[in-house]
């Protein structure tokens, strides 16, 4: 109960670094980021313009770190950062942004706007202006170990089911395993088929793998709410488990921000390099394909398209791999307009799906994905992020569209040759 404006302002001061200063100095106010953001294109609301969302951070940079701003501050001429401003900006920063990073791609001067929004969230959260839903999820992640409140017994129950159904062993806490698999709560609770698929594929591929009972949760609420201290704590749990089991590679599951959190932000958050590799599950599967460890049977004839999860494709660079894998089992793969690194976000990443207040707007901006789908009329959508998957299902239902969603890993497992 100790969040305060002072803490928020201090956090914003901390967030200003050379790249932020360069970004703000370079911004020409051209507004090109607006048309790159689905929250702007689908609502037409000027306050949804990405660069507008970082106004609190911009004000701190201007008044604390620029010569003119310092002079202005002496005479009280600067625009202030106060609770009123932060209250106003709360929805812009949390509800109307999925940190998808499409704005960063189009900025003509190369500003990483998504990074700046992420930094702005640090100040918002420290000042007590984070959305209730995200605060709750973060608390559960720290205290229970999962934002959805999933505990080890729940995972064990699902693993039991999988083992019974498949007759395969799901290895737990195996020291020296090649791979350590992480899972998102969503997969444990809604899509246990994922665990089954992994068990099948990895057994067929003949590799050693394991799940740690001490750190199986891949998601990182600290990243979404914008508190690096908490994000670091959650990353540290995984690092400790991976080091304890001496695994060579940690696998991030079908979840967007989890991959970004552990692979790209992770070492920076804990302040040292990992002594293991981090890979996304699609990267591992594509390696199996290259090594000839994946034997596939039967091809799908229905029109399949792939929804690129932002953190995996645009922010993660895993773009070729899913296409290689889909082409193994599909004869009829079609790309959406704007794919790969320029794909449109589903509308619910970056903590938006955890924030009930944003339910209305996330379904409204789904219109963008609907337009994309209307253009190619696929029979089914393949994706590789549970959060995208849940929200796509929500959106399709909202817009009365009957297109099934498929997990790439699960579909691949279904096509494994005996």
């Amino acid at each position, binding site marked *: *109960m*100790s*969040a*305060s404006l002072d*803490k928020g302002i*201090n*956090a914003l*001061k*901390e967030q*200003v*670094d050379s790249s932020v200063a360069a970004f703000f100095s370079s911004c020409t106010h051209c507004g090109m980021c607006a048309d790159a953001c689905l929250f702007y294109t689908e609502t037409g609301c000027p306050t949804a313009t990405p660069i507008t969302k970082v106004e609190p951070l911009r004000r701190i940079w201007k008044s*604390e*770190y620029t*010569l003119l701003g310092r002079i202005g501050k002496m005479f009280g001429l600067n625009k202030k950062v106060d609770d009123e401003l932060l209250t106003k900006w709360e929805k812009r920063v949390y509800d109307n942004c999925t940190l998808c990073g499409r704005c960063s791609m189009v900025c003509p001067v190369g500003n990483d706007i998504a990074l700046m929004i992420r930094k702005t969230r640090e100040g918002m*959260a*420290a000042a*007590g202006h*984070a959305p209730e839903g995200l*605060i709750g999820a*973060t*608390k559960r992640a*720290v*205290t229970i170990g999962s934002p959805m409140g999933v505990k080890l017994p729940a995972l064990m129950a699902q693993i039991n089911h999988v083992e019974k159904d498949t007759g395969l062993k799901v290895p737990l806490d195996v020291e020296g395993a090649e791979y350590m698999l992480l899972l998102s709560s969503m997969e444990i609770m809604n899509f246990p088929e994922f665990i089954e698929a992994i068990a099948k594929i990895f057994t067929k591929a003949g590799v050693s793998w394991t799940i740690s009972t001490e750190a199986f949760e891949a998601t990182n609420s600290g990243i979404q*709410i914008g*508190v690096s*201290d*908490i994000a670091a704590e959650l990353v540290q749990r995984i690092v400790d488990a991976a080091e304890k089991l001496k695994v060579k590679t940690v696998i991030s599951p079908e979840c967007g921000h989890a991959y970004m959190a552990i692979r790209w932000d992770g070492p920076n958050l804990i302040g040292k390099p990992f002594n293991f590799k981090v890979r996304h599950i699609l990267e591992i599967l594509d390696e199996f394909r290259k090594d000839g460890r994946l034997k596939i049977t039967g091809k799908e004839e229905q029109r399949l398209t792939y929804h690129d999860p932002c953190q995996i494709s645009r922010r993660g660079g895993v773009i070729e791999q899913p296409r290689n894998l889909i082409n193994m089992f599909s004869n009829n793969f079609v790309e959406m307009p704007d794919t790969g690194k320029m794909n449109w976000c589903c509308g619910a990443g970056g903590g938006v799906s955890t924030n009930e207040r944003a339910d209305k707007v996330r379904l409204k901006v789904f219109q963008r994905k609907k337009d994309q789908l209307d253009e190619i009329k696929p029979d089914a959508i393949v994706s590789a992020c549970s959060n995208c998957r849940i929200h796509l299902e929500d959106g399709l239902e909202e817009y009365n569209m009957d297109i099934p969603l498929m997990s790439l890993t699960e579909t691949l497992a279904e096509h494994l040759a005996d």
Partner: protein
Amino acid sequence: MTNNSNKEKTLGEVMRSRGVSRRSFLKFCAATASMMAMSPAMIPKIAHALESARRPSVIWLSFQECTGCTESLTRAHTATIESLIFDSISLDYHHTLQAASGHAAEEAREAAMNENWGKYILVVDGSIPTDNPGYSTIAGISNLDMFMQTAAGAAAIISVGTCAAYGGIPHADPNPTGAYSVYDVIKKFSNNQLDGISSATLAKAGEGSVVSKPIISVPGCPPIPVVITGVLTHFLTFGTIPELDHLGRPKAFYGQSIHDRCYRRPFYDKGLFAETFDDEGAKKGWCLYKLGCKGPTTYNACATTKWNDGTSFPIESGHPCLGCSEPDFWDGGGFYKALSMPTENITQTAIYTAAGAAAVGVALGAMNKSKKNNAVAAHNKTTIDDLEK
């Protein structure tokens, strides 16, 4: 008698009788049109106007001058159309050129004035002394009286040369004779600032309303011959004076600076300058700016029209422009002094400036760094208990 019969002839007739071919005449018209920035459609109009024009009466008055302007205009190396046109005007009075002298000469001037009152063109070279009339008199008439009387009946006044246009060398500091340009003398007259004008002159000046006469300045020390004939051609073709700039100069010839049309301009743009008259730069034909060239502030046609039948112009001969077609060029502070120089030691200045800027940058950077460090130090680890107020 021959003179009188010539007067009845048109310019075209005179030129043909002198063996100027139609072809070279049209070439002259085309050149004039292009130099005065007229459309090509004007060429036949110029030709027609010149051919059919009655030769205008021109009275040429020379006051405090060196005859350089007349030399420039008349000492043509070959018989050019310009000189022929000049020959072909009815030059009724020009005391350097005319055969008559003394009272006979003055009578010729008065006769021409009376005959063409209000229609003749008055060309003036030299400045007019206003202090003591005795400084310069012709046939016992002071320059001031002669100018005012003659100007009274002119259709237009052309100030040829820098002395007539701005006062020139006689006007230069300390201006011992109280010399002024044509324009300044008329301005002083209209402000009642002139003493020593005879009552007869005053009466005549009033009659002709001297104050309202159009004045065309053709400055230069000396001016380019073609500028004179261009102005005359314009007057004969349109019956009006050409478009003038703020100093009364025809824009067609004085519209651009020497610098802007200089063939050495690319060296200026690259920063390649001759430092002395015998260095590598001078030999390589680099920009003469540092040797005092006034090209950037001088408006004239030298760089395009050139001198001596298009042979060259001063800069092409390796000498900086003196700026002779600009007011007070003689008092400009030295012909070999550059218009402005950056600083004595540009490298050192640049180093000091860079060092100063770097120091400010480092100071600001240090302030920013300490501010950021303070913020980091003030950071309390945020836990889940710190997410709400």
